[in-house]
């Protein structure tokens, strides 16, 4: 974990309120584990005293010294609105990488990754890692519409599926994609969780990773519990410190109160008291 200035490499509007920013930083001291996040501060906006957490969507080493981090963000309130104004060369104060990421199984019969909207950002690196362990990996991702799904680049190892194969359980290497949109513009018309039962009837999963709106996580967790599938979820809570000190971000678990910022954001789904 470091606290340093990162330089904005690019910052573009993908579609609607979805943006993507690429930050470059001198030598991160450690690898970013899939599921970890960075805690950002915009120094130009001194009246903002609280940082904001964003999942690391992608990591790349650009040259020998520079690590580039891609974050995909949705404009919600003031902070994310200000973020849209950042341009190449601006600097952003970055703290991270933070948190416990996914505990991906090295050996599994089949793994399922369930993403809702921008929650995909927290899952993309996991979706890239699992096939590397030769774990057959299925993606089940839902979003507002076809444009959002395309903008999120849902796929394996940064190889998004060609649009025409979306929603058709197309096969790429060992992996399969199932998609859903709120407006039916691509894949299943409705929520991705509506495909969950059937998918689990057809494939014997022994690991599920999920990130997205909490109602989606609740459904995924319930199904995993019912079928005895090992399942992890990535939670969101408002965070102040990100360092396990302030207790703004607690979640109730079967082993007591836990901090989403440092004990999570990834937790065993069966641990959470929803």
């Amino acid at each position, binding site marked *: 974990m*470091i606290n340093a200035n990162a330089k904005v490499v690019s910052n573009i509007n993908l579609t609607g309120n979805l943006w993507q920013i690429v930050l470059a930083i001198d030598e991160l001291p450690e690898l970013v584990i899939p599921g970890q996040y960075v805690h950002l501060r915009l120094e130009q906006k001194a009246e903002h005293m*609280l940082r904001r957490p964003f999942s690391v969507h992608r990591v790349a080493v650009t040259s020998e010294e520079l690590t580039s981090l891609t974050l995909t963000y949705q404009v919600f309130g003031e902070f994310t609105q200000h973020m849209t104004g950042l341009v190449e060369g601006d600097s952003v104060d970055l703290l991270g990488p933070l948190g416990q990421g996914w505990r991906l199984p090295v050996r599994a019969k089949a793994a399922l990754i369930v993403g809702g909207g921008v929650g995909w950002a927290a899952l993309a690196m996991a979706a890239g890692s699992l096939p590397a362990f030769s774990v057959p990996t299925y993606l089940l991702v839902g979003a507002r519409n076809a444009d959002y799904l395309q903008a999120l680049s849902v796929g394996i190892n940064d190889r998004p599926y060609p649009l025409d194969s979306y929603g058709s359980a197309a096969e790429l290497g060992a992996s399969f994609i199932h998609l859903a949109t709120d407006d039916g513009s691509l894949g299943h018309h409705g929520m991705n969780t509506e495909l969950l039962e059937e998918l689990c009837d057809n494939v014997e999963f022994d690991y599920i990773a999920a990130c997205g709106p909490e109602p989606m996580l609740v459904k995924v967790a319930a199904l995993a519990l019912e079928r005895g599938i090992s399942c992890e979820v990535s939670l969101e809570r408002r965070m102040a410190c990100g360092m396990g*000190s*302030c207790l703004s971000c607690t979640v109730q678990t079967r082993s007591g109160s836990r901090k989403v910022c440092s004990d999570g954001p990834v937790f065993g789904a069966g641990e959470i008291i929803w």
Partner: protein
Amino acid sequence: MVDIRSTEQDGLAVGMDGLAACEDAGCRQVDLAVTLAGLQFKNPLTTASGTFAPGQKYAELWTEQGVAKSGAAFASLGAVTTKGVSPVAWPGNTGIRIDESASGMLNSIGLENPGVEAFCADDLLWLAAQGAPIIVNVCGHTVAEYVAVIERLEQEQTVSAYELNISCPNIDNSGMAFGIDPVAAAKLTKACRAVTSRPMIVKLTPNVTDITEVARAVEAAGADALSLINTLAGMTIDLNRRKPVFDRVVAGLSGPAIKPVALWAVYRVYQAVRIPLIGMGGVRSVTDVVEFMLAGATVVGIGSYSFTDPLVIPRIARQLADWCAENGVEQVSSLIGALHAA
């Protein structure tokens, strides 16, 4: 008459830790040490309760960034002040716990903590190895609960002092109720005084008409020092839902926005009592620390700004020596209350 708030240097060997390292030949060394209620602080800095300790991640970050040594990660602090500790575990508040406001933040944590037994077994044990004296912040719903926490902590050698939190706006019974009533505050102070001879600090709330009244009452009841201020009561509104953001409606405002309020409280209380003060509220720079000391603080607490800038504490610790050297201040303790002498 000797002012008991100034540093008692006579016959006291100040270790190298208390002296700012000075690399320029010929530059004079600055003495950063202060004494508060008989406790030696190598510098006048502590963490504000609930915003830092136990601070394992801060220790990790500081050592990784080269601003602290591993094994003595908090050596840049005069003392570490812990989160409030109650006799048994408290769950804290439901719902959203923080919100932002211009140059500030509100919190409704509700003093979540694992209780004194778990605190001793985990946090205290870890903190004791980090190279800074420990001030334990104590909370309870009743006088008996505060006393119970202190009685348990009396068995722990590593506790240097207590800070009684009678000023939290985030819990229903007691909490701030003690802090807004001089009679109740004095009664609580007296009961705690009876079970410890360790330095006892009482933490005051600004949510009163006259903060000096409570200050004088707890001084008379046996407090060795006062710390101020706790957060200011406030609220925020979620316009989309047309509901208060916080389940309890009220929350505590902290951060740079409250600094002028805190300075004025320290300034007034300094004139009202003779015991030393720990000043806090919105500190984010070395000049803020100096201002609090000039207003009357012997020690200064750094709180929510650590959330904004996790390196702010070691930075201020380093810059304090430089600031003193540049401004001809040989002993940082000479700043304490200097505004009042002028």
